[in-house]
């Protein structure tokens, strides 16, 4: 009506402006409280379009609103001895809660608020009790005042810290994901773009990336740990893929601990995979590991050129030493099935250890 305060307030609160105007009109009859409240609200509310009001104007607004509350309570017939202390406490609480928005430094605001609240409580007690009771109640009043003033501040501080921590965890996760994608996928894509004309290299890069990503995405399907036979076989296969640009498809059931014997088996298997990659002429090698705690069998198979095992030249030390020698030293056996044109399969077996 006058300065658009009722409409502004209604807009803020999301109620009908008429209702707000009615409340102000009624309040105006209570010792003129409505008029004072109207002025206070006008000082507090920013004009439409203006970003916000100044600190000083806001303090004025709050003082006027509290004044209006005092007048209204007067109008209701309450005693001065009750109303004035209440006004002091309310002013203190308003300061404590709104220090920042009033443009005051938090420490100053808290000090002023504490003084106001304590003064309010002491005045109230002084007016309403007699001598001895005051002496007992004053410390309690101070404690309540401190709680009122410091409570909201401590609560807000705790809330901010929680929000900060959650945000920090989110950021950390995002950074970890970004780092991983950068270290792996982006690097691989960059490498592939640099060497697009070398299909073998591209295939190797893609395969390695696939393996890494898979191990990260589906950790549940790769229960093999670092210290187990299955993990070591996976690692050996990965190395061979990398070194020779072939695909090594590992299928495994069961697992066994990694010890001297199984370690020898892994090395022999690695040699067999390397041979298949180098001599078979095909680019896919199958590995099957069947293990439990007592018995281990491992098969390395390719569908390549094959050879006549009886006619192997003496200089092919790979099979004689690296595979057969290794396995026999730990009590294992080797069987090689191959024929020209029929591919090759190397079977490595470790029977139950005699302990």
């Amino acid at each position, binding site marked *: 009506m006058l300065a658009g305060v009722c409409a502004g307030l209604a807009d803020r609160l999301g109620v009908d402006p008429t209702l707000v105007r009615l409340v102000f009109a009624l309040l105006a009859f209570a010792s003129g409280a409505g008029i004072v409240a109207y002025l206070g609200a006008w000082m507090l509310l920013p004009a439409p379009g203006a970003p916000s009001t100044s600190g000083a104007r806001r303090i004025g607004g709050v003082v006027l609103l509290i004044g209006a509350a005092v007048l209204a309570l007067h109008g209701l017939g309450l005693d001065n001895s009750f109303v004035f202390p209440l006004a002091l406490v309310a002013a203190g609480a308003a300061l404590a809660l709104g220090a920042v928005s009033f443009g005051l430094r938090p420490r100053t605001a808290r000090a002023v608020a504490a003084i106001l609240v304590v003064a309010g409580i002491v005045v109230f007690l002084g007016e309403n009790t007699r001598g001895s009771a005051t002496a007992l109640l004053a410390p309690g009043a101070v404690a309540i005042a401190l709680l009122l003033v410091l409570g909201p501040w401590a609560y807000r501080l705790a809330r901010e810290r929680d929000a900060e921590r959650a945000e920090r965890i989110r950021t950390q996760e995002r950074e970890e994901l970004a780092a991983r994608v950068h270290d792996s996928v982006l690097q691989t894509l960059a490498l592939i773009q640099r060497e697009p004309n070398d299909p073998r290299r591209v295939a190797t890069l893609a395969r390695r990336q696939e393996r890494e990503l*898979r191990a990260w995405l*589906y950790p*549940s399907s790769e229960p093999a740990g670092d210290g187990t036979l299955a993990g070591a076989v996976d690692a050996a296969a990965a190395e061979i893929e990398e070194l020779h640009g072939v*695909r090594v498809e590992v*299928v*495994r*059931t069961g697992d066994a601990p990694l010890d001297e014997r199984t370690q020898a088996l892994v090395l022999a298997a690695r040699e067999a995979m390397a041979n298949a990659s180098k001599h078979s002429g095909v680019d896919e090698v199958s590995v099957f590991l069947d293990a439990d705690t007592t018995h281990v069998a491992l098969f390395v198979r390719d569908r390549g050129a094959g050879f006549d095992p009886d006619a192997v030249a003496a200089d092919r030390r790979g099979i004689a030493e690296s595979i057969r020698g290794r396995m026999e030293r730990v009590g294992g056996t080797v069987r090689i099935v191959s024929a020209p044109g029929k591919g090759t*399969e190397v079977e490595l077996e470790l029977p139950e250890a005699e302990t």
Partner: protein
Amino acid sequence: MSKSVPLRRVVLVDDHDLFRAGVRSELGPTVEVVGEAGSVADAVPLIKELDPDVVLLDVHLPDGGGQAVVLEVAPERPGVKFLALSVSDAAEDVIGVIRAGARGYVTKTISGEELTEAIHRTADGDAVFSPRLAGFVLDAFRTGEAAADPELDQLTSREREVLQLIARGYRYKEVAAKLHLSTRTVESHVSAVLRKLQLSNRNELTRWAAQRRLI
């Protein structure tokens, strides 16, 4: 495939256009791709309408996965056979699609020639076991705990032998030669394993899958 091979009508369900295009170009002349879909919602009505011989089904789909497609289509179109095709190694996903009714599982690195063969095998009602699936099944049926229904809950030693050879990378024909059996016999062993996998209530099977998800 020198004999006169019937032309198989196939629907491709995979959410990657590039992958579908790759499969289409790799399949031999005995396979005709009659339709493609990229999601469960698109696939279900399309398969019901086209009634193909075989559906090549990605295990992972954005709105539910291959399992959902099988479960929705199979009751209405019992003639349609499903072959799961995936890059996923996650055993529980693969076993899930198989238990829903797929006739087999191959990995996406399979060659076009082998895939064509697998489609014909699926269309004929046989089971298609890649080395990886054989490994999963051996693992799942591994423990020696007493089974409630030995008929369904355990593998025979012959079935185990066949699966082990498949896991080693043998094709059915090679398995047959190695074990001195006919290819037909090998196929029936594999189909029997598939049936056990689908029907067994064996506790270990679910527990095994659950463990893999949790570890």
